[in-house]
């Protein structure tokens, strides 16, 4: 009961922190989608480019998140503002699942369908836009879903570089050995992750086509 009272008393702060969190995640996801999908398409079209692209994204993924924030700190323009820094780091994490799933989705299109499309005189761009991307769409969404859930969790670390978000409560709670504070950050973050997972998962099922 104490905890619920605590949440209600601090609802304004929690709400503000949630909005900050969503801003970090939303901006990072936007960047990751805008960069990741074209890279995934390139990786699918040109396998020799695909290997290095996915390799680099893989490396970014393996850097511990706290260390990645640290590495980016001295970078001139990025290090100037905490949210810039956090968004960049989060986007880097989100990139791999998006690139990989876009590429897998496109290369997974039944070769017969691609063959029929070419044979009927569709241009490569028409095949990409009207055949490959729609058929790869559920894969692509699965990548976005995994990336979004991951980013929501990792974004709590962004508080360590002063970018705000729900991590603020967690870090403060850790410092003050206060469980209620930790939960005030962790529960909304978990709820955001679950909601995102559910919404994107539902969309994903809607766009799955029997091939």
């Amino acid at each position: 009961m104490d905890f619920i009272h605590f949440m209600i008393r601090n609802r304004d702060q929690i709400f503000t922190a949630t909005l900050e969190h969503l801003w970090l995640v939303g901006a990072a996801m936007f960047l990751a989608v805008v960069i990741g999908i074209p890279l995934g398409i390139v990786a699918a079209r040109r396998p020799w480019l695909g290997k290095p692209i996915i390799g680099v994204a893989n490396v970014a993924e393996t850097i511990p998140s706290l260390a990645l924030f640290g590495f980016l700190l001295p970078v001139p323009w990025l290090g100037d503002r905490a949210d810039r820094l956090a968004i960049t780091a989060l986007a880097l994490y989100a990139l791999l699942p998006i690139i990989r799933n876009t590429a897998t989705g496109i290369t997974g299109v039944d070769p017969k369908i691609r063959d029929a499309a070419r044979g009927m005189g569709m241009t490569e761009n028409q095949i990409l836009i009207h055949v490959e991307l729609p058929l790869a769409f559920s894969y692509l969404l699965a990548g976005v879903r995994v990336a979004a859930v991951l980013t929501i969790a990792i974004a709590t670390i962004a508080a360590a570089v002063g970018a705000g978000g729900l991590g603020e409560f967690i870090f403060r709670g850790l410092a003050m050995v206060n469980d209620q504070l930790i939960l005030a950050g962790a529960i909304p973050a978990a709820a955001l992750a679950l909601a995102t997972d559910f919404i994107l998962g539902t969309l994903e099922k809607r766009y799955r086509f029997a091939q």
Partner: protein
Amino acid sequence: MNDAPSTQSAIEFRDVSFRAIDGPVILDHLELAISPGESLVLLGRSGSGKTTALRLINRLLEPTGGAVIIAGRSTLDWDPVVLRRGIGYVIQDAGLFPHYTVERNVGLVPWLEKWPEERRRARVTELLQLTGLDPARFAHRYPHELSGGQRQRVGVARALAADPPILLMDEPFGALDPLTRGELQKEFADVQTRLRKTIVFVTHDTREALLLGSRIAFLDAGRLVGIYTPEEFLHATEPVAAAYLAAFRMGDSLLK
């Protein structure tokens, strides 16, 4: 076109060879002329090069030697997209787009060619009727809601959509059960006599070749063994063709 002879072939293979990169020779100096309106069957066992020959026609493959001439021009001189829009293409299992309804699948090439919607819709209805599918029942279904035979009918309708003068068919009925296959073969033979397209039909099924071909080109290991009318093919003396026929007759004699 002043250098073209008056009886121009619709499709002509001039000393065509094809080999995959660093791979074996798949087609070996093929010479073949296909007249407008005829229905030529490429017959042979798996690996004889018949599908490769077909894919050279709509430039899904490019010859590594010689030239494939369509309407007086080498396929390499055609814009591949323009060339393919004028050539219907039907493959085994139809290769329909699973995210499109039957109507959109059939109307694909007219849509690519930017036909007005009215005309497109009328054409789709006409083609579904021609291929024996009730437009009211089937136009709005998705491929996964159709049987194999129905999908193949849609595949044929799609290939005919923009009324191309040439139709390429790569074992279109190969994946169907014998009964459905028989039905579709018979109906297709009717459609063919009505439409008078130039058809190149790939199959390994002798019965199908005899039923649908006005001529049969028998291929073996990338070489053209001979060109026959169905009647002539039944009496072919070339060893490989005769062996192929013997196997066919043996299957037939089991029934007697």
